[in-house]
């Protein structure tokens, strides 16, 4: 029967592998039960009166129950893997459907921005060890259940996508670590206690402490790389041909943010100008950063602006774009939700229009000012500039007037503190960064293609 199934959701090997994953999760949580029993203490449980006035129960009990369920699930997988047709521990359709329906670029971007905001607002909560552990377990459960879906597995399980999943966990862990340490230090500052780094400034010797650590890391990394190279085969494809582009055609994973950016901008902007601005902007950070705090220790409260700005550029605008490009962009660069089949013929309405068309045709109800055929440059220029006046004005306003308005209003303290030149560098870097989400939102909201569209001069913004 297996060979008749079109897209077998489950195969024996997947179930068997998942069994080991659940077993590993059980072991992790068994250790956590021990830790929780030693540290977390008790809670009062009354179960709505069933237990009378209530009873003292260690928090570890809940973890033990959870670990026990994991163990049973693992046993189910490890014993029932031979019969995938009857296996029913799948990602429930009731979860898949809403996720599929809610998935679109807008929801993705808005969602990642909301997560970014929550991450900062709730930093005190989610950096506690228990909260971090819950989040880790939830993400692992989500991943393990989703792998039972054929389409999800095809994408996430692709050998060149597996490391990106690992990278997401690493990014998550280090973000968590940063917020945990800075929350701790901010508390210490508030209470007038010395910083963690001051209190624990024990110095160790390079030899042997550091060198031994490095040796161990070297051995571990080598072992992981060898195992990885053996287990996951390199995804080689057919010989390259100039006449045939793979569909979808994807950049290396670390450039998928750039590729996503290219969807919204002219190649000259997204391929040359904005990457250069990113690089130069990162180099300019020491120049524009006048905040001396946070030097040599973790802190958030003392560097709110710097950390929030950097994290916004890094998490929603770079990492989330990599996720979007890797997992959610399919053939013809269409958007596909996580459990959706990558259909080459998926039809998406993407009729984009330029701002000039929006203004002249939709706004004024008249055709675009047309350049007469065979016109010289001097004849062309005024017509083209008149055609694009709104977009040009908007860009000039955005890059020239807006920094000054900001200097007079919201960024006044920065302007006063930094001086004209440094402030202008900062303001323009920020505006350049914000141009990406603005352009994305405009594309999604009104199908805007270019704010200034002068293909005659290869100039599009």
């Amino acid at each position: 029967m297996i060979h008749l199934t079109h897209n077998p959701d489950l195969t024996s090997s997947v179930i068997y592998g998942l069994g080991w994953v659940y077993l590993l999760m059980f072991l992790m949580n068994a250790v956590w039960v021990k830790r929780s029993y030693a540290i977390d203490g008790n809670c009062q449980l009354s179960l709505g009166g069933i237990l009378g006035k209530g009873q003292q129960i260690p928090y570890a009990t809940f973890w033990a129950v959870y670990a026990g369920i994991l163990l049973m699930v693992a046993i189910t997988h490890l014993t029932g893997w031979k019969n995938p047709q009857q296996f029913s521990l799948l990602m429930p359709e009731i979860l898949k459907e809403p996720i599929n329906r809610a998935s679109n670029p807008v929801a993705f971007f808005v969602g990642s921005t909301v997560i970014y905001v929550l991450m900062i607002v709730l930093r005190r909560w989610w950096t506690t060890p228990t909260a971090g552990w819950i989040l880790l377990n939830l993400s692992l459960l989500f991943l393990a259940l989703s792998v039972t879906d054929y389409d999800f597995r095809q994408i996430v399980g692709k050998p060149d996508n597996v490391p990106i999943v690992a990278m997401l966990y690493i990014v998550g862990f280090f973000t968590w670590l940063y917020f945990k340490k800075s929350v701790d230090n901010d508390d210490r500052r508030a209470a007038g206690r010395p910083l963690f780094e001051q209190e624990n400034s024990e110095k160790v010797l390079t030899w042997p402490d550091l060198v031994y650590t490095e040796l161990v890391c070297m051995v571990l990394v080598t072992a992981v790389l060898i195992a990885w190279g053996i287990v996951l085969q390199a995804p080689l494809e057919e010989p390259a041909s100039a006449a045939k582009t793979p569909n979808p055609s994807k950049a290396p994973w670390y450039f998928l943010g750039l590729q996503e950016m290219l969807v919204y901008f002219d190649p000259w902007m997204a391929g040359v100008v904005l990457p250069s601005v990113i690089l130069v902007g990162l180099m300019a950070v020491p120049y524009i950063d006048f905040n001396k705090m946070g030097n040599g220790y973790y802190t958030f409260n003392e560097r709110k602006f710097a950390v929030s700005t950097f994290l916004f550029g890094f998490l929603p605008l770079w990492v989330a774009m990599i996720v979007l490009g890797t997992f959610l962009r399919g053939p013809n660069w269409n958007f596909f939700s996580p459990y959706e089949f990558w259909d080459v013929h998926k039809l998406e309405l993407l009729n984009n229009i330029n701002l000039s068309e929006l203004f002249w045709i939709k706004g004024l109800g008249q055709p675009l000012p047309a350049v007469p055929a065979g016109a010289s440059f001097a004849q062309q220029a005024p017509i083209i500039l008149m055609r694009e006046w709104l977009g040009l004005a908007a860009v000039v306003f955005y890059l020239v007037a807006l920094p000054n308005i900001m200097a007079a209003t919201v960024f006044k303290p920065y302007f006063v503190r930094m001086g004209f030149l440094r402030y202008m560098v900062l303001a323009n870097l920020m505006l350049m960064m914000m141009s990406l989400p603005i352009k994305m939102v405009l594309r999604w909201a009104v199908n805007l293609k270019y704010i200034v569209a002068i293909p005659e001069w290869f100039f599009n913004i």
Partner: protein
Amino acid sequence: MNHKCFLLLGNSGGAVNNWLSAREYVARINQDAPLQQAGSSFLHTNHSFRVKSNMEEKKPSTADILAKIRAQKAAAAAAQAETPAITAEIPPAEPVAAPAVTSPTVTAPVAATKPVDAGPKPSSTKDIMAAIRAGGVKPAGVAASAPVATSAPVAPAPIVPAAAVPKAPVAAVATGPKLSPQEMLQKMREAKVAAGSAAPPVAAVAKVVVPVAAPPMPAKPVAAGKGAKPTTTQRGLAGLTTVATLSGLFLLLGYLTDSSLLYGLGLLAWAALLTPFAAAWTAIAGIGGIWTLGTARFMFPNVLVEPPSKFKVGPLSDYPLNTVSNKWKDQFGIWIVHTDQYEGRNMIFALASVCTHLGCTPNWLDGEQKFKCPCHGSGFYMTGINFEGPAPRPLERMGLRIAGDGMLEVNKSVKYQEEMGQWADATSYVEVV
């Protein structure tokens, strides 16, 4: 007290010039704004600088200064016994010699009016550097002003300051803690004792060098041989050309006159070319020439492996109305499109299969009736007009005509861009009637 300073005063009148009293003079002038680390570094430059700067703050009149000078004279007379009398000639070669001062009444105002140049009291490194520069430029006249004050009445002769102007202590003076006048005087007295014991042996040296034990400022590097041009033998191309011309001339004359002597001379001249230098030049010119020729040759390869830019794609009847032919895409990178959707005219044209966004190869999707690029999702109608995704302009047309044998012939060496109005060009399409 490490710093010793000596004034060599030209003293024709035999009057004793007292450098210690000069210090006191300075100290008193500085009473309003005491010298920082007084006594530790009494050196001419900073002295003069301090004097200047303090004067600037207070602007003492000539009368004030003269009064102070008179007070100094009394003190000098008292201290005379224990101070070394230093006499010296004016070193003729001394570049920093003070301008000849003829009378005290002139000297003092000079000192008083100088501060305008000196700038305010040094507080930052910048100020100190400025002070050093100011001191370095004209230290003599200013430095001399203090001693002039003491020796003025009897010193019509030019006054020469003690020589090389030490720069280092300025920093020390400027950065140290401020001292009260009493502390300053105290330190000065200590300095007097220390310096007095160490002074005489050095003072005897005619060529005055002030030993400075303070950490010296890094001196400006002075080019040692500046001005003296290195005398290298110049045997460049000019020499080479001369030798070559000469030898050529000799050989030519030898040939014309059939003289073996001239021949021999010509060959000798060529041998002269074989000096290492000439040989190197010859070699470099030869190799450069060969490379240039090789590069030029590279531009004209024997075999061109690219497809011809003009090729036949079959008769009109191969391409039914409103179809896109993928037939030539792999080989030549073009689509042949036959459509009546562009301006309502029934025409055939060749579209380049290069996306106008970033150059990927789009696919013709027959079901959707559009070209779709897999890289960033740009979409084009059958006519080549862009309508979705980021592509900023339509696909490009290639030249197309009906050849003499009735076949369609594509010319890839020309392209026609719609946004430039070039699609109106009759060579960009073939009208079907």
